[in-house]
């Protein structure tokens, strides 16, 4: 339909102009017509393969092996990415066609699942994190399933006893430090959370807002875990008085305020991930210009689960098994910039060198997070923003 309309709307003014023009004006118009003609030509060329036309071909091309198993729809966040080979292998092994939809991330993803509970967006979900896990289970969007592929590593992060969610990957949110800045300033780098309130680190730290940013929330939770429900707000008051800067999102903090090699800011301490430093290592360099402070980390866990009311529950379970398989686990660090949950996986070399995992990150029970998240964010806002 759009193809015909496109031709009609863009071509008509041209027709009108030639008939209406006085004979003398025709040459002048002829030159001016070049532009509309280009627009029409480009338009037609694009319309020939516009979204409607293109999608049929695009989808079908990858759908060849899926005769007997049908289609399984994976609902995930927009950072979901795995090697094409792995997906092709999965489809060949199971006879399923894997389709992904990415309607949002973090809280948005969970809320969408809750809203569409009666007519789920897909069969299986991947990407619910430990700050929203309990909420998702309590709202009944998930079907229990314990994968035979689940190892003790997966068990360790279980949210409940029925097995509504299986941990797939973990990521640690940590304060990152600009080594060069501290070397030049001749100040020793901070190590612990307490250090950050010391006068020598005044005006050096930038973090993100827990109300609008998921690493921001994770860091607030780290302080709750570290100082307890009675002490964490005092800690934040001390940070605030020590010249803390709060911005709304990660890109903002990392690329504007941080003094690291790709940034232009003047703050050498930024809230980011334990896996960020390898990205800053220039080609051929042997030392990372930035590092993560491993005593300041909070562990984010991402889960997968079968959606209640799935059209293809069997396929959904196969996807969960697949996500926990050694092949996918090994692909996770390079593809999705987080650590696999399976501790048996060999990490890429740049990760073991520049992104060691913190051994004892701060953690909180997902149930406790779910119960208190809103109040904590509110209390944080009252303390830090005032």
């Amino acid at each position: 339909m759009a193809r015909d309309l496109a031709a009609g709307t863009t071509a008509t003014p041209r027709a009108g102009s030639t008939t209406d023009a006085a004979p003398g004006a025709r040459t002048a118009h002829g030159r001016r017509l070049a532009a509309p003609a280009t627009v029409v030509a480009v338009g037609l060329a694009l319309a020939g393969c516009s979204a409607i036309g293109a999608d049929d071909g695009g989808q079908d091309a990858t759908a060849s092996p899926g005769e007997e198993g049908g289609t399984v729809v994976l609902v995930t966040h927009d950072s979901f990415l795995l090697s094409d080979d792995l997906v092709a292998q999965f489809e060949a092994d199971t006879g399923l066609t894997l389709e992904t939809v990415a309607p949002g991330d973090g809280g948005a993803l969970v809320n969408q699942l809750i809203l569409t509970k009666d007519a789920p967006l897909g069969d299986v979900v991947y990407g619910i994190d430990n700050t929203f896990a309990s909420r998702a289970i309590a709202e009944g969007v998930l079907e229990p399933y314990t994968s035979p592929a689940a190892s003790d590593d997966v068990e360790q992060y279980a949210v409940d006893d029925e097995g509504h969610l299986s941990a797939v990957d973990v990521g640690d949110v940590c304060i990152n430090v600009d080594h060069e800045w501290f070397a030049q300033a001749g100040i020793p780098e901070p190590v612990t959370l307490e250090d950050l309130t010391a006068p020598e680190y005044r005006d050096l730290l930038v973090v993100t807002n827990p109300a609008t940013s998921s690493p921001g929330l994770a860091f607030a939770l780290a302080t709750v875990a570290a100082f307890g429900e009675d002490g964490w707000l005092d800690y934040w008051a001390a940070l605030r008085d020590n010249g803390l800067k709060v911005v709304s999102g990660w890109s903002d903090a990392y690329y504007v305020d941080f003094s690291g090699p790709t940034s232009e800011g003047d703050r050498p301490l930024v809230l980011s991930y334990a896996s960020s430093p390898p990205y800053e290592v220039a080609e051929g360099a042997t030392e990372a210009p930035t590092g993560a402070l491993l005593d300041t980390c909070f562990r984010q866990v991402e889960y997968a689960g079968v959606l209640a009311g799935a059209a293809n529950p069997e396929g959904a379970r196969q996807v969960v098994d697949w996500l926990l398989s050694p092949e996918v686990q090994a692909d996770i660090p390079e593809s999705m910039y987080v650590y696999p949950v399976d501790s048996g996986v060999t990490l890429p070399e740049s990760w073991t060198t520049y992104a060691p995992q913190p051994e004892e990150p701060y953690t909180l029970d997902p149930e406790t997070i779910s119960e208190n998240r809103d109040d904590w964010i509110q209390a944080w806002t009252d303390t830090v923003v005032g």
Partner: protein
Amino acid sequence: MTAVAAARSGVVAGRGGRLLGHAGWALAVAAPLAFLGVFFALPVGTLVLRGFVADGALDLTGFTEVFSRPRTWRIIGLTLAQATVGTAISVLLGLPGAHLLYRREFRGRGVVRALVVVPFVLPTVVVGVAFRSVLSDSGPLGALGWDGTFAGVVAALVFFNYSVVVRTVGAFWVQLDRRAEDAAAALGAPPWRVFTSVTLPALTPAIASAASIVFLFCATAFGVVLVLGGTRYGTVETEIWVQTAQFLDLRAAAVLSVVQLVVVAGALLAAGRARDRRERALQMTAPERASRPPRLALRGPGRRAGDIAAVAVTGAVGVLLLALPLATVAVRSLRTPTGWGLDNYANLATTGGRNALSVTVWEATLTSLRVALDATVIAVVVGGLVALVVSRRPRARARRRAVRLLDAVFMLPLGVSAVTVGFGFLVALHRPLGLDLDLRSSPLLIPIAQAVVATPLVVRTVLPVLRAVDSRLHEAAAVLGASPARVLATVDWPVAARSLGLALGLAFAVSLGEFGATSFLARPERPTLPVVIFRLIGRPGAENLGMALAASVVLGLLTATVMSLAERLRHGSSVEI
């Protein structure tokens, strides 16, 4: 061909033609309404209703609860203040810009006109980073201390919306008959007097049109407020997002959505009033005469004080507000870990540092162009029909009211949160209207979502021009027996075609840059350019940042090209009235 000639040749059209005409009008009203109903009213209505239903019963206690929070009132106040100040400054700065870029001729004018639109489509996350790089303590304008302040937010709002005023007012201004001004001047009125008592009143419909769009954009600004407002400044829009995506509090979100609708409806009503007061047939000139504005002269006998002021204001706006952040993006896109170069642009053919993406940036660009094309077609057809219907002034008072209501209703999508629309799609478009059809997974949904946002812009662009058609021409043609279709083809179409190029361009540009609703519908295997940029800038590493900025430059250039082509399309159509 003149209207009278058209009418004469249409004398044969009889009663049958008239009946057909009525059916045509009915269709012109029904088709856009059905589109808006299914793809806007239904999703938004369903989602908002969800917020007011608890345990199967209507529960309006959310209102009392949300309104008892001091935070709510603070946010409503901030939204209104930001939008009002942002709109006022955009209009004040935009008028001299429109004058300079549309009423004066100078070398490079076409390039400047095209570049002015670039900010309008740049992804807010990139603009946020660029703006903060300029305004933060270590940036070139850090001394102003605007980072995370009200002034910073307003500056960014003006950055985004300046072009809306320049374009909307300029396109109208260029077609105004200059003879009234010349007459006033000949009678001895000083230039400022000519401007305030002849030009400004004549421009009011276009200014009101532009101001209402800008107000809606400002009142619903999201990303830029989030990034630049820091933790202190929020709007109803950011609050709806926080409540929906973070607190999962649909009740509060629904109450805030209603508040947003009320604010938007109020703004539309006020703008409609302002337009109505000036509603009359304006004298438009043929483009041949209009398209030769005087050359800009800042020295010598031809110089005018007004021009010098316009150049000063527009130059300052251009350099400080538009060029500085844009240059920041462009310059940083050329920086590589080893120095300066085009590496980041070469990388656009890859999937980013450590495979940050699932497709290359060029593939995403192609997806964006395809989607934008579909969206533009939908928006221009729907918006064109609406503009046509709304441009008529029926005699019956009830019909006149209905027409005005239709006008306002189609502006609403600009004033409703992208989160609400995006979530609404997911809730309402599974078996819409009882049909056995899951529209949520349809690839058509993305262009449709973008068309919903672009349609109001098409209406606002085409409508002022159509409205300015002297209704006596319609009457004369009808009296002489021309069928309604004939009247449309010979009276309205030639005039509308003038603004169609601009409408096409704007719709295409809006669709290219749309991120809000798209981000809820995007498919990981086929993301659009803004979605890809958002992902790249969300990853650490020089390569990813460099690519995000290079991709933003590509998006900006693409937009500028489309706009300048669209503008030429407008000139290409010759019209005689």
